[in-house]
């Protein structure tokens, strides 16, 4: 804890906007929270079907079997929850990995989550469509297997972040070859797989909520507990050892938390990119590098971005729906570049 005894001093410094840094951070966190709540709220009140606010309130208090009630309870509400949880999981996973690898480009792709889940999901969807109900568990197993394989391959008297990243690139490339192969040999069946590769929340409902919820809750708690270790790891291995941290063990455990968070998310919605990489960076630019703030911040912002983007994706061309991944990239990438140029 010695490292952070200096933090209060930093808090007294004044930002370039003349706001006390403590208040600035508090304000940013509060804004993230407001955005997440707004995202959830909009997801429930906006959609292709016109349902008035008063009607929605009635439906939420007293559900019936009318179409409007079905739309709110079985379509919009579970979809909003899945979106928020997925966003938060991916953002947390990315935030953790960036600290563990000490690399700003680290995200769930790096530990093979996307390629592993992608191959698992596509094998089930295209080669074994009779077992399509197993897409989610198989994708999850694929994601975890890829992560474990990369860990084992990168192990040589401990883990060096660079070796792990390179092993990740190699394993992902290997698995992607399998994905491409299947998509070429079964080109007539590619469409379903394509939607999975882009990632989206279409047709997500309560069963998906129950799959992802436990991982999201446990993952968030573990991430909050890990904040201290993540801070220490960022200082470099030497310093971290000096502070009494078992660096290897911490890295294994933290990577496992990140893998579980990301695997549960991608197995439910497909390979949603972007959130895991960009959200932690936006959070860091606005909140600073202290993981005790960054973890809750990234979770809230991840939930906000996915729910807001998905609402936009559902409404803009209604009744045609765009995959949320496309909207996130279109809005998010320029915004991120803007922040980067401003160097907050």
């Amino acid at each position, binding site marked *: 804890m010695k490292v952070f005894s200096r933090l209060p001093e930093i808090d007294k410094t004044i930002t370039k906007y003349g706001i006390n840094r403590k208040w600035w951070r508090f304000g940013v966190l509060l804004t993230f929270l407001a955005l997440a709540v707004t995202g959830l709220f909009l997801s429930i009140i906006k*959609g*292709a*079907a016109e349902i008035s606010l008063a009607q929605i309130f009635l439906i939420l208090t007293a559900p019936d079997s009318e*179409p409007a009630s*079905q*739309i709110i*309870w*079985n*379509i*919009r509400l*579970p*979809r909003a929850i899945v979106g928020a949880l997925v966003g938060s999981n991916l953002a947390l996973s990315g935030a953790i990995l960036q600290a563990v690898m000490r690399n700003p480009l680290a995200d769930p792709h790096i530990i093979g989550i996307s390629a592993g889940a992608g191959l698992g999901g596509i094998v089930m*969807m*295209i080669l074994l*469509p*009779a*077992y*399509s*109900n197993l*897409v989610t568990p198989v994708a999850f197993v694929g994601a975890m297997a890829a992560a474990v394989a990369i860990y084992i391959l990168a192990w040589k008297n401990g883990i060096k972040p660079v070796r792990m990243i390179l092993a990740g690139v190699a394993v992902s490339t290997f698995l992607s070859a399998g994905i491409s192969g299947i998509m*070429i*040999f079964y*080109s*007539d*069946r590619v*469409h*379903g797989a394509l*939607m*999975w590769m882009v990632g*989206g929340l*279409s*047709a*997500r*409902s*309560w*069963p998906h909520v129950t799959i992802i919820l436990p991982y999201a809750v446990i993952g968030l708690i573990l991430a909050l507990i890990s904040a201290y270790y993540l801070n220490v790891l960022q200082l470099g291995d030497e310093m971290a050892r000096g502070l009494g941290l078992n660096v290897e063990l911490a890295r294994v455990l933290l990577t496992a938390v990140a893998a579980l968070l990301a695997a549960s998310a991608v197995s439910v919605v497909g390979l949603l990119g972007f959130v895991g990489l960009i959200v932690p960076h936006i959070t860091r630019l606005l909140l600073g590098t202290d993981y005790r703030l960054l973890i809750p911040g990234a979770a809230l912002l991840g939930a906000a971005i996915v729910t807001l983007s998905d609402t936009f994706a*559902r409404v803009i061309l*209604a*009744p*045609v*729906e*765009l*995959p949320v991944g496309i909207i996130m990239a279109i809005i998010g990438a320029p915004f991120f570049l803007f922040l980067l140029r401003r160097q907050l």
Partner: protein
Amino acid sequence: MKIKAIWLGVFLMMLLVLDGCIPQNKATEANKAVSSGEQAYAVFKDDADRQVTLAKKPTKVVTLSTSLLNFVAAVNGNLAGRASVKAADAAIPDQYKALPEVGPVYNISSEKLVGLQPDLVLANKNQHDKLLPLLEANHIPVLIFSIKTYEDVKRSLLTIGKIYGQEDTAAGKIKEMDAEIAATVAKIPKQKLRIAIIHATPSNVTVELKGSIAGSVADMLGFTNVAAEAETAAGNQEKTPYSMEALVQQDPQVIFITSMGEAGKIEARLKADVRSNPAWNSLTAVRKDKVYVLPENLFLLNPGLAYPAAVKFMAGVVYPEVFK
């Protein structure tokens, strides 16, 4: 000094790339010579908007897909080669079984194809476009076909009839198919059934529109596609991702799912999938068990000449009592 050399090198490389981009279409030039010089055998405008001139009646035709092979069979045409097929997928007419093969439809071996020295290649749009430059460079004429709707089938059959000088056979076959479809349509009740067609998997909502096979079959049967409003001005769209809640609001009476893979096993799975998902279960058609699975050989891969069978299949699942 070194930097200057690098600049020069980069510049030269860019020139090389640009040079590669300029089409060097000797084949078209050769065709032009033919069309201006002597009377050509036939001139076609294919589905890739290319003008193809055949100097004389082709004698060594190669088809790159099974559906095109069936078209050739319908006009009793000769072939010099064909795409390979898995035995389970499609029956090859006897007269074509022993033909040299040029590899599977999605992965044609360009070496084998060129090695056969065909004087006409019949190819599918999107699947075989990449072979075009190579074939044109070898002065091998190619006709590209894009066959989705029934209209496409009829047009393509006429084209292939013309290649073999068998226009009458083609026209006769078309009459036969028209009659068969008309008979099916006449049998079903004259109600505007409201339907939706889901593409491939209920794990995301993609609806098929009029430009798709199932969409055009439904159109022929006089069904109303509830997703028709999603059609763009361009018109011939095949499918689009669609809002689940819009589906619930439109409340189609019947839902079709075009399946991938063997229909028998998949059907039970797809039905279980939609029933176990509360979002899908919000649809009346799902709750009333009006979900029908359309087999891939008729509705996902192109049925070609089996279009009447596809029309009959769709009518049959909705009105089993009419088609016993």
